[in-house]
């Protein structure tokens, strides 16, 4: 297998310059003729739900306008803040763990594994969890943590570490931990893949020069490799934050948000407001609030990303 590298492009957009001016004008017209209908349709399709959400959020169920009272109810619901706190807590567990573990594996494999075949095997093994449906991962987690039939309690008891059954999904802190391990299992390989690819972009010469100068494992990382990995950390943080905000499937299957509301992350909370309490107005207000805050957050972080823009 050929190697994967991180491509961190220069931010300037280069445009192919060819052909005469008249031909160019004709081609540009063609471009617009193809683009505008397609983009227009997609834009409308994307925008309609937002418009509907705004409309739902300022009207009651029978369609009369009631102003901002849905927003008031949404923002004064203490469960919202519990959900935000749970989401933040979840992010604080999984993001640092995944990044540190992924980094450790990337460095380890980069330094110790030289055989291309073995590297390719590790690549496939790392891609594997990424495509397992979160629902299936939730099923696996159920088999491990569930009371009664969970294999983890069986293993702990057989090894003599505990004597009674631990309620992995029944104690708030343990439930959050259990839910987080599922995320870590599935997504640490992603961090590994990205950072490993990043390490391939470090020029051999600067590493060799540093080694001649007596750089250790650690100084080589801090002074050389880390420099090349920064943009990728941002990238990982961007994608993983987007993912944490949409986490639903495996939590829904494993704990359903419980015990109580301790693992009720933002997505589960909004699901509950709309489809369990059937409070469409409050749910729409939440949807608008989330869409607006996400857009602002996105506008703030997107400039820092090492993505090819041209």
């Amino acid at each position, binding site marked *: 297998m050929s190697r994967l590298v991180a491509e961190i492009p220069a931010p300037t957009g280069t445009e192919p310059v060819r052909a005469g001016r008249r031909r160019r004008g004709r081609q540009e017209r*063609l471009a617009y003729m193809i683009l505008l209908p397609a983009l227009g349709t*997609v834009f409308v399709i994307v925008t309609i739900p937002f418009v509907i959400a705004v409309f739902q959020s300022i009207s009651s169920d029978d369609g009369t306008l009631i102003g901002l009272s849905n927003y008031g109810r949404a923002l004064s619901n203490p469960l919202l803040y519990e959900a935000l706190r749970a989401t933040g807590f979840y992010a604080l567990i999984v993001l640092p763990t995944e990044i540190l573990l992924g980094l450790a594996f990337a460095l380890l494999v980069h330094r110790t594994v030289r055989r291309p075949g073995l590297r390719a095997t590790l690549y496939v093994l790392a891609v594997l969890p990424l495509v397992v449906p979160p629902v299936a991962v939730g*099923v696996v987690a159920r088999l491990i943590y569930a009371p009664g*039939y969970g294999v983890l309690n069986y293993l702990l008891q057989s090894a003599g570490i505990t004597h009674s059954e631990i309620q992995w999904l029944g104690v708030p802190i343990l439930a959050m931990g259990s839910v987080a391990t599922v995320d870590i299992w599935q997504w640490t390989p992603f961090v590994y893949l990205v950072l490993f690819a990043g390490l391939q972009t470090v020029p051999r010469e600067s590493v060799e020069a540093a080694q001649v100068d007596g750089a250790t494992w650690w100084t080589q990382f801090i002074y050389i490799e880390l420099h090349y990995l920064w943009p990728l950390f941002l990238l990982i943080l961007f994608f993983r934050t987007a993912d944490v*905000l*949409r986490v639903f499937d495996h939590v829904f299957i494993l704990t359903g948000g419980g015990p109580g509301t301790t693992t009720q992350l933002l*997505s589960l909370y909004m699901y509950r407001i709309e489809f369990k309490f059937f409070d469409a107005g409050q749910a729409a207000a939440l*949807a608008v609030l989330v869409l607006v805050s996400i857009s602002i957050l996105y506008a703030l972080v997107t400039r820092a990303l090492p993505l090819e823009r041209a």
Partner: protein
Amino acid sequence: MRRRRRRSAAVWARVALITVGLAVAGLLYAFPLYWLVVTSLKSKAELYTSITLFPRSLTLESYGNVLIDSGFWMLLRNSVIVCLSTVIVTIAVGLVITYPLTRLPVPPRLRVGVLNWALSLRFLPPIAVVIPYFAIVRTLQIYDQPIALIGIYSLFNLPFAIWMLKGFLAEIPLEVEEVALVDGANRWTAFLRVLLPLAAPGIMAAGIIVFTFAWSEFLFALILTATPNAQTFPVGVQGLVTQFAIIWNQMAAAGVIAMSVPLVLMVVARKYMVAGLTFGVIREK
């Protein structure tokens, strides 16, 4: 001499540490998958005796129960229909958008704007979109029909498709098409006969990745479907998990089926997987 021995001791300690670390990591990585597969292969009788790490006998009985007795083959069929349609729509729209962006002279600002906009869709939490989309689906009376899923899946996979296709199309030199144009072909034939075959591997890969994403999707399917008429396989899996008395081997079998399809596809498209997940930042060289 002594110095060398001391160093080799340190090296051995390090090797031992790394080996132990990797062994633990490998175990944590593989055991859940092993346990899922093994549980799915156990007989019902074995489930209710005690937990056995190594099954006493292997049987495919649970798979038959899930697929035939519980009628999950219908959900499997729905999943295939929904995913294939999603792939076709997403790739077609993706090509329509990326072709002019990569092959025709458009202002760089437009290109950047479209790509950024596509990327921003990646950040949308599905739950915030599904709340108003649910109202649309009910108004259009397509609740519990595959078309409702195909629409929203295509929309949510379009950003991936645009970024991946953009990468693949941009790699093909403009000259190959120009040669065909000079030879008298029109743009459509040049696209169909020259560009499409050259980009086919990339388009296939993008299609496979969109397929796996659509296959895994759960939240939309949970909300927008209600009966085996349109329910996809993940919704069925969830039904097995939350029912009152869980039948563990059947639940595990459903999990194995749910993951086997994307795993097989992933092996085919593995080279492009990371490129897809990172919007082309990580590329193969």
